[in-house]
């Protein structure tokens, strides 16, 4: 998965080799559009030539839509692409100074290099001025430092700020940009190529809004939780493991010590922290469990917000695994349905090296055990949780004594 610099596919200097190649293409397109010529750029500020606006925003749309969809299709992980951090006041002031400078120079830093490269003396003058400006900043840094680091918001996006999903913001930006393009080019007929770009951008943006509204919208998450599509039962998980589902990823959210003592076969240790940043394949079936249910449920929300579609958790944590798969118990006064479930469970128990027990007193069968996990959750009383922890501990001790 990309970026390649993060996966190490290019070696230590691989990305440095890519830099001049990408720069070459960047400079080429800037010059092709005429952005090496100061009067042409300055026309932007007098609305006589809107090339700057057209080039800049069609580039922005292309990269934005491309990045959104490559991330969706698990080709590129945007979490690993550097997101410029926000410092409200310095960026506001910097924008003001930069805008004024752009107006008088008629060139921005990148285009001044293109202008200079094509023989324009004014390009050299702007580039020289840039070096001087940076030098001034560095010399005055101790005075500017307080302001420079003020009003930091960190790596925050417009959608974070607005509380919408990324797809909705992508759709909004695309809509505004396409409308502006239409106004900017209203006196000329669009060429087939331009029309094609516009249609493609509109379609990709519309689809971005649609997929995001479908998945990570808080209301749809609420509906999934409401209808109990957020969890998986221990026997169903056992079924997936036994079938050798290659997309299955099981994560144990308990402490490393607890994980070391005993964990579900194939599970890997994780924390809320690692799950919030680690790269997982988009198509993975992710199953989470913790001691009770709380941590796993929190991780579920986190992963769903990160855009993973197939995420489930064991509602009663490891206890459910132990009591329903490893050590299923059938009460002496079992009903017909309980017997059928037990038959399935004891088969699994054998597969995973547990022991199924029949004819135990009803009192020793955990409450809510045979009713498909519709037991009261870890949200129960503290005494409940403590009792469960003890019984989980006893079960683990028992299993370990047998040497499994």
């Amino acid at each position, binding site marked *: 998965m990309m970026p*390649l610099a993060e996966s190490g596919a*290019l070696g230590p200097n691989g990305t440095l080799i890519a*830099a*001049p190649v990408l*720069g070459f*293409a*960047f*400079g080429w*397109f*800037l*010059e092709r*559009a005429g952005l090496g010529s*100061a*009067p042409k750029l*300055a026309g932007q*500020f007098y609305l006589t030539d*809107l090339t700057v606006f*057209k080039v800049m925003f069609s*580039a*922005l749309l*292309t*990269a*934005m839509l*491309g*990045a959104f969809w490559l991330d969706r299709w698990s080709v*590129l992980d945007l979490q690993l*692409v550097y*997101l*410029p*951090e926000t410092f*409200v006041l310095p*960026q*506001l002031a*910097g*924008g*003001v*100074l*930069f*805008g*004024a*400078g*752009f107006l*008088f120079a008629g060139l921005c*830093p*990148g285009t001044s290099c*293109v*202008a200079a490269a094509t023989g324009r*003396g004014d390009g050299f003058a702007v580039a020289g001025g840039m*070096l*001087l400006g*940076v*030098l001034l*900043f*560095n010399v005055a*840094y101790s005075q500017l430092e307080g302001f420079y680091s003020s009003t930091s918001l960190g790596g925050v*996006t417009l*959608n974070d700020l607005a509380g919408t999903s990324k797809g909705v913001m992508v759709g909004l930006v695309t809509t505004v940009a396409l409308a502006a393009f239409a106004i900017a080019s209203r006196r000329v007929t669009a060429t087939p*190529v*331009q029309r094609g*770009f516009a249609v493609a951008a509109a379609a990709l943006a519309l689809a971005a809004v649609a997929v995001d509204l479908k998945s990570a919208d808080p209301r749809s998450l609420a509906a999934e939780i409401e209808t109990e599509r957020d969890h998986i039962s221990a026997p169903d998980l056992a079924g997936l493991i036994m079938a050798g589902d290659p997309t299955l990823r099981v994560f144990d959210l308990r402490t490393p010590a607890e994980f070391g003592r005993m964990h579900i076969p194939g599970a890997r240790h994780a924390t809320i922290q690692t799950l919030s940043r680690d790269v997982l394949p988009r198509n993975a079936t992710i199953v989470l469990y913790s001691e009770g249910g709380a941590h796993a449920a929190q991780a579920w929300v986190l992963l769903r917000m990160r855009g993973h579609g197939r995420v489930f958790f064991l509602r009663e944590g490891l206890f459910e695994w132990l009591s329903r798969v490893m050590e299923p118990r059938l009460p002496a006064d079992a009903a017909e349905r309980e017997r059928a479930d037990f038959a399935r469970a004891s088969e699994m128990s054998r597969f995973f090296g547990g022991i199924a027990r029949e004819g135990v007193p009803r009192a020793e069968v955990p409450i809510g055990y045979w009713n498909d996990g519709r037991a009261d959750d870890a949200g129960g009383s503290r005494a409940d949780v403590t009792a469960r922890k003890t019984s989980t501990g006893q079960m683990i001790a028992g299993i370990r004594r047998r040497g499994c």
Partner: protein
Amino acid sequence: MKRYADPYVAGVGIGLVLLAAYAIAGRGLGASGAFASVVATGMAVVEGSAEAAKSPATAPYLSHGLASPLHDWLVLELLGVIVGGFASAWFAGRTRATIERGEGVSTARRVTAAIAGGVLMGLGAKLARGCTSGQALTGGALLATGSWIFIATCFATGYALSPLARRLWR
């Protein structure tokens, strides 16, 4: 001299280059960062590398060691921009030793305005942590809040002050 390309086609081209930069390097394009890198190296040579490595203004640009701005991604990228810009102009017959300016504007005036504009942009780009490439384009496409603040204030100021510079570009 050939006509300029369709700005939308050039824009989509730049967008794809930017996307490739995300995908390959995990970062975007830039220009002012390369200037900053060159200045930091220059300062390190003049005032001693130990001094420059201590200053938080220059230290981030000196992590690869002194006198090696060529190990900086942005410096290499900007060298590419220079070669690419030249190549495009060469094939289109647009290379010309000249100073481009508005009608009736003296060379001295144009050069003065260009240097002054450059100084302002240097300061502004440092304060904003990027320029039209590294902040507006790269961060804007990732929907970074600060990038959009920069885009908005940059163009708003340009338009607000445009009457002052009218004689430069008329």
